[in-house]
């Protein structure tokens, strides 16, 4: 029942939010609700039985004649991703505290609806149920980007939707094919699907279909072109949801489906996937150097990080597997932190363009400190969370192929290069002489009580960043708790 409540509660909250009016009330309801959900997730963690793969299991018959049931449960990875989701959603809501969006009830409702879908994806133990939640996560994401997005949002979100949707359809096709290969009586139960007997040709086709779905979602080079555009145009909260959590769905899919269902094909074609992923790491890192929009830069940085996770997973080694799970958590925490910071900078200055920023550290020292810590986590400095995951992943890759790990290791060097360079140009040096657009706008609108220079962090902003920084050090110093 714990698991059902995890999914049901955000849905109830969503419905409640659509009925409520008044921005303040909505924000408080969404925040407190998501905090309750986080508490509930912690409770689930406490009740989780480490030695049983079928922990917190629920099975309700649904379409029995087709072998479809409402089957939920959690294993080690599920529980960690559930915790990650429940941890990040309150922060994402809190990061919007000082902003006011049009149609707030829809905005916060969609965020919570997305949380519900994430919870479903990470706990579903039935193929069709998984697919339903997988697609359900896409709809709020689409609305968030299309309604509250920025420049050229309709074209970009349309492409995002179709691209990821086409990938998912391949997955659906593969699931249905698998269904007919399961032992009689056919069922979409995970264990039945795992037990499906496949010839090597069948495995290859299933592998391709599932890989397309997950590669687009992760995204692995060259299926990534929707990602930078979408991250850039989405509202800050949407970007955080996409990069912090939604991206993990693809990796989760690889762990949950691709590797167990098509082990022979993974063994045969894994190296090809690894080459793609590693190419993507270098490619995205190189592109990141020349980005002017901070959001775009972090988007490419994200591609490089998940490329390393994907490459590590396909080595099928224990270290890389542990590293992938820890790096999933770390990347979720770090990218939410980075996008939150970019949102804060944009709110102060009215721009995300690196070329037109500069010298912010002098005016907002606390912002600069938090930015630095999160950035160091992102570039895998030892004792931060990024190091633990990437180190394990690189060890796994190294045992598989020294050449692969050497090229993949470039991501750390390049990452340090472009991220620190961005920090230098944005936070250090001198402020632009012509001032910032936001300060100028405030002056023009006669809001003279607001200081013309960007001010330091507010309390709510600090409350968003402090848990993130705590997690960066916690995972970095004592990662033991986060091993699957």
């Amino acid at each position: 029942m714990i698991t059902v409540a995890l999914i049901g509660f955000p849905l109830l909250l969503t419905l409640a939010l659509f009925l409520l009016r008044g921005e303040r009330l909505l924000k408080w309801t969404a925040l407190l609700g998501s905090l309750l959900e986080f508490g509930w997730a912690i409770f689930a963690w406490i009740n989780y039985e480490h030695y049983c793969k079928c922990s917190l299991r629920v099975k309700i018959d649904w379409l029995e004649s087709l072998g479809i049931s409402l089957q939920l449960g959690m294993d080690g990875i599920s529980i960690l991703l559930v915790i990650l989701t429940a941890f990040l959603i309150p922060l994402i809501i809190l990061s919007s505290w000082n902003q006011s969006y049009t149609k707030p009830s829809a905005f916060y409702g969609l965020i919570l609806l997305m949380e519900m879908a994430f919870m479903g994806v990470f706990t579903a133990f039935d193929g069709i149920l998984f697919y339903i939640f997988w697609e359900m996560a896409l709809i709020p994401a689409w609305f968030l980007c299309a309604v509250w997005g920025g420049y050229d949002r309709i074209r970009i979100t349309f492409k995002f939707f179709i691209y990821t949707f086409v990938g998912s359809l391949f997955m659906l096709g593969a699931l249905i094919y698998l269904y007919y290969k399961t032992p009689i009586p056919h069922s979409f139960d995970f264990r039945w699907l795992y037990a499906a007997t496949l010839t090597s040709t069948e495995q290859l086709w299933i592998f391709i279909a599932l890989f397309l779905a997950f590669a687009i979602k992760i995204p692995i080079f060259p299926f990534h072109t929707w990602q930078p555009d979408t991250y850039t145009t989405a509202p800050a909260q949407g970007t955080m949801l996409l990069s912090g959590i939604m991206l993990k769905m693809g990796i989760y899919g690889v762990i949950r489906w691709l590797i167990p269902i098509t082990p022979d094909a993974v063994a045969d074609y894994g190296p090809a996937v690894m080459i793609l992923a590693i190419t993507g790491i270098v490619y995205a890192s190189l592109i990141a150097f020349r980005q002017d929009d901070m959001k775009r830069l972090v988007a490419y940085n994200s591609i490089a990080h998940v490329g390393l996770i994907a490459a590590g997973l396909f080595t099928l080694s224990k270290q890389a597997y542990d590293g992938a799970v820890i790096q999933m958590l770390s990347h979720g925490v770090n990218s939410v932190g980075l996008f939150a910071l970019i949102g804060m900078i944009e709110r102060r200055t009215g721009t995300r363009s690196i070329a037109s920023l500069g010298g912010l550290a002098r005016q907002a020292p606390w912002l600069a400190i938090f930015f630095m810590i999160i950035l160091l986590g992102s570039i895998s400095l030892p004792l931060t969370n990024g190091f633990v995951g990437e180190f394990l992943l690189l060890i796994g890759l190294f045992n598989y192929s020294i050449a692969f790990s050497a090229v993949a290791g470039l991501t750390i060097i390049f990452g340090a290069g472009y991220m620190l360079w961005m920090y230098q140009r944005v936070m250090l040096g001198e402020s632009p002489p012509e001032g910032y657009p936001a300060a100028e706008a405030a002056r023009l609108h006669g809001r003279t009580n607001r200081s013309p220079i960007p001010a330091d962090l507010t309390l709510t902003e600090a409350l968003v960043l402090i848990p993130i920084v705590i997690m960066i050090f916690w995972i970095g110093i004592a990662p033991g708790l986060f091993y699957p």
Partner: protein
Amino acid sequence: MAGPTPVSALIHAATMVTAGVYMVARSGVLYALAPPTMAVVAITGLITAVFAASIAIYQNDIKKILAYSTISQLGFMFLALGVGAFTSAMFHLTTHAFFKALLFLAAGSVIHAMGGGQDIRKMGGLKKKLPWTYYTFLIGTVAIAGVPPFSGFFSKDEILLQTFSADPVFWIVGFTGSLMTVLYMFRLMNLTFLGNFRGTSDQQHHLYESPREMLIPLMILAFLSAIGGVLNVPAIFGGSSFLEHALHPVFAGAQLLLHTGGLTLNTGVFLLVVTLIGILVMAYLAYQLYVLDGKGLKPDDANRRFLPHLLFQRYYVDELYRKSIINPLLALSGFLNRVVEFRVIDWLVNGVGRAMVWSGNTLRYIQTGHVGFYLFMMIIGIILLLVFNVLIR
């Protein structure tokens, strides 16, 4: 170099830059097992020592000279590692920590007195105003130059002796490097502390010795720089080679593999005398050039002959990096961003969409609305099905 002076002192003396020396010494056995790597380390060290020392001769920023001096001294340490003299490398690392920290902190005292000025062409004659800084700096200078009995003499001489026993050619290059050390250090000291003051009169009025809190660390470090050599005085000077014995367990494995041959006493003494004469000549040369002749004060934009110009521009290494790494990297990044990302990958992705739209636009003409045409298409379909059915069997 650009950091605050105490930070420079810390980084250059003890922490970051010497980590590599420690690392190689620690992994000595690995290097000893693969002799070509030892040669690579030794040659890299030699090149570094001479390369950085030659640059230091033509620099004018007090901290920059010291920074290049650090690089040069690191070269000596790597030379020692490369010829298998691990103990000497660690010994020089230790004495270097003493006098380089001293020199940086003394430079900090000078910069403090100069109100932030770091250009030694604008200094001169500070000896009278900053006596304590001067004398401690002097100790640092003679220590790094290798004047006996200061610490640098013992450590650097040992490296050179070991180098000679490994390969006399290496010794010649290393010896040249150590002569350059004497030249640039005495140039630095002479231009800073001797002669007449060349700064503004405003600065001249504010020239005061630094407070006690700044001087006490200088004195401690000067003391250590002076006597640091006792850590490893070799047997020929009646010492006990303390460091040698202390580190013996660490390097025993590597030493066993290397069979380093010893030098005869005569050779050792001969080399020692050559080195001492070299130091004296260079120190005199520096005094003649920079104090009596007033050389070494050329402004930045003055015409220089080829070699001085090259050294003044630091062999254009920064330019080289810019042209060979940074610019190509940024160009590649721009190319990938503009061309590959949008014109190739995204074009293909969007191409799928375009193909759908195109096929929809094309195929809709088949929907003519004439029942006869539909029947005709149906018949063709049935025939095709039958044909395939036969073919598949």
